[in-house]
């Protein structure tokens, strides 16, 4: 108990519990995971909200993300500054969304952001190309990529504007029950 008190105040822990899908223990565990990335940067006392940010290089080297082709996008989407440098809050946010408990809507929202490489709030063909290249490690030929892009947009685009909005995306996700189990990282 005493140990917990020195890192967070009870109110802080309550707030974190109310805002993420984690229990007290998991929040503490995530804190230690965060701290282990850079023990010299992260203080053991978070009661007065120190302004600490870990650079993307450290976040991306976590075993959970290291080999994920979308690691940079994940970090960018969840970081406040959009460049992958994460505060503890961002870190908790990321794993909360990727946890088992998060509802589909929330997951779909962030998945959309992750696949939206150019941040224009639409998944357009260039985003799709990037996604495909990351998924298949550039193994598909250009022709195939183009065809897949066309088909995907053709299938999922409801208003025929040639790109996928969040709504199109959610509408597609609803019909893919796998999504909930695959968009999930175990801590």
């Amino acid at each position, binding site marked *: 108990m005493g140990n917990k008190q020195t890192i967070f105040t009870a109110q802080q822990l309550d707030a974190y519990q109310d805002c993420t899908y984690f229990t007290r223990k998991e929040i503490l565990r995530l804190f230690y995971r965060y701290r282990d990335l850079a023990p010299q940067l992260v203080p053991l006392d978070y009661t007065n909200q120190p302004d600490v940010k870990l650079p993307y290089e450290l976040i991306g080297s976590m075993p959970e993300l290291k*080999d994920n082709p979308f690691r940079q996008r994940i970090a960018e989407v969840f970081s406040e500054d959009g460049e992958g440098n994460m505060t503890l809050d961002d870190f908790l946010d990321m794993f909360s969304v990727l946890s088992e408990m998060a509802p589909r809507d929330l997951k779909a929202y962030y998945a959309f952001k992750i696949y939206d490489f150019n941040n224009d*709030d639409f998944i357009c063909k260039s985003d*799709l190309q990037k996604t495909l290249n990351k998924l*298949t490690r550039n193994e*598909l030929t250009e022709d195939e990529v183009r065809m897949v892009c066309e088909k995907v947009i053709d299938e999922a685009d409801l208003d025929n504007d040639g790109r996928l909005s*969040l709504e199109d995306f959610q509408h597609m*996700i609803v019909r893919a029950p796998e999504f909930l189990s695959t968009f999930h990282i175990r801590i």
Partner: protein
Amino acid sequence: MARNVNFDLNHPLMEAGLESPVDEEVVHDSFSQLIAEQSQNESPDAYELQQLQRQLDEEGRDHISYLSGPGHNYRERQQRQGQDEWQEDGMQTDLNIGERWSSATMKILSSMPSRTIGRSRGAIISQYYNRTLELRRRRQTRPSIRDFSPSARPSIRGYGMERDSIDGEGTEMTKRERLVNNLQNLSMSDRVRMLRAIPLSVAEKRELRASALQKERRTRSASQIPCCSQLKYYIIIAVRQSWYSWLSFLHSLQLWQVALKRVSGRFGTAVLSYFLFLKTVLFFNIFLFLVTSAFLVLPQAAHPPGLHAVRHSFSGLELLTGAGYFSDTVMYYGYYCNYTLHSSCRDDGRQNISVSNGTGLDCMSKHLSYNMPLAYFFTIGAAFFITCIILVYSMSKSFGQSFRIDKSHSILAMKVFCSWDFKVIKKNSVKLMSENIQTQLKELLAEVNHKHVKNTFCQRLWRLTVHSIAWAICIASTTACVIGIYFFSQHMHQNLQQTSRSPLTSQNPLRYEASLLALPVVVSLINLLLPGLFNLAAWMEDYESLSVSTYVAIARNLMLKVSILAVLCYHWLGRVATDRDNNHLMCWESFVGQELYRFLLMDFIFSLLDTLLAEFLWRLFSTRVLKRRRKPVFDIAKNVLELIYGQTLAWLGVLFTPLLPAVQIIKLMLLFYIKKSSVMMNCQAPRKPYRVSQMTTIFITLLCFPSFLGASVCVTYTMWSIAPSSSCGPFRGLKNMFQAGKRWVEELEKDNPNLSVLARAHSFLVENPLFLFVGAAIFLIVIYFHSQVVDGQRKIINLLQEQIENEGEDKKFLITRLQSIHEQKRTPARRLRSQDSSC
């Protein structure tokens, strides 16, 4: 347009775990919410003109700004943090789309309500503001005093007004304030759920939460609440705190966290599902074990009945056979006492020492007595009932998650966006996964490109013959095995009778015990070998679609296992149980319990053998001898079916062996570690796609339907219509087990005539078959209604989907109109500008 889309505002937004198909429309409701938000900013006309002006200025720059690279993206993102910035978006126009629509149209398009969902912070906040409003309106059944505080107007009265004022101001601050107000007025759990689901960063959520809490505190201190409600408040807080600590306690109990993470990191969701299923089965057993040990084993162990049998010496073979040394212990049915006997009255003495030598009737009449037969009956009954409820619940939940209207379109899109398994973290597996996705994409593309490749008549005929041959082989082998088991068990049974009659048994008890193992070994061997034959048949058939071949494999294995279990149940309940004239078995229940123990153990040993042979040795063989780099693939379906088979045995055996769940727990624990290390060592990630949620649903259904239901039918049959053996067990001397309850009620009536109503109710409810029929009929009717409701919902969903498509068409139509209007407007505007410049 928005009005048309606004078909249903009463959907369960908050149950937005989105678990049933009913919730699907949640996604589509956002038009109306956002239309309001959108129209609040400026009047559309002014906006359009302004846009047009800007567009004229910027038309040339569009593409340049698009090309300006990633730095621009980040800048844009940061700007987005602040305010509504859809003006900015026009500059982001994609080159591909620019060809189709003019940039002005694109701008209007991208500011359409449906497109702005969740784009800026303001939009998110107001979207969730609307959601909280709706939630509050729905929960408005109990308007409390707090709701009428001046800072937060109750939604029933103030709804329209609030909407109006929002339309007027619409700045982010006020939206935020309103969201906070709404949050404050929600109940605690609703607020937490809402907060968690808002797609904002944690820092912002914390701010929202803090301000909501602060407001709540202020209003509370302002409006002097009576002390009882303050007490209520504290109690709520205390309950919540203890709930949180209970949750974290539960969480710390989570088994195998690290192991599961390693497995999923390497093999992904598919293989993980096997281990999760194993965990589910384990929890069922832990539950059963807790119940039986608390209500049966512990009371009995604390008060052992007089030793009436010779204590067998421990020889080691007992661990395999479960007989001998174990046969007169709490493990088996035969050890448990009944209170109508004189000797067992000592049990009663523990609570009431003064009655140490009472007769059976005296014992029964004591209030503090522990009526073992009754306890036995009700413990098993309650355990089965609760298990049934849990199973049905988890089954329905699983169905809700995986049930979708399977329209074949947008497969490719799903493949692209949903097939990456974020759990997988091992480098090789990541590589393998991207290879798999690549091949799957290629296959899908090929499929899409030539969809209709018709097989010729000859080919179809050939396929049909191959399939029927394969099925014939499988059915024939299964039938042969089942008949073999039937005769073998008969032979063993007669053999047993003879040996028990002859005096030889006492000379060579070891041999006698070893012979008991023959039947389990044969059955387990069949269970091990026949699936191999089935696999061979499937290989011969060469199914094109993977899911079909999986289903076929499951169907065949299931057929085998069900028929084997049916024969065995006949053997135990029809032959051993009714065959007491020979009197070679002192206690047939204990014997059947021992048999089940042996079967369970043999099943375990053979699955170990299977692991060793099929996975370890095969890997060695294929890597060393065949020099192949591929390792074998973990056969999820087969392994899960084995688990289900073992669990059926355990459920069957609980009645005869109350400690069987403990054995099953140990077995599952060992199995987990063995399978885990075998998978880690010998297997590679599956190469084929595997529909996890669908398969999980199927497996849990199988666990419920043939497995649990079959076991409970057998147990009920035993309780209702087989006479228990007369010399052992809690039900000795009764016509059937179920009479224990009846007798108890009769005693009760004798003791206390006032309770005769209860007795009559009991005899009416339990003994009358009519009641059972009525119960079953009601059950069926409920199921029928539910299926009708689901059917109706499916139809509605189809309609809604049609509606969405129509809306899409409408949208397209409107967009083209818009485009043409712009075209017309642009030409005069250009002329105007050229005139300006010439001036």
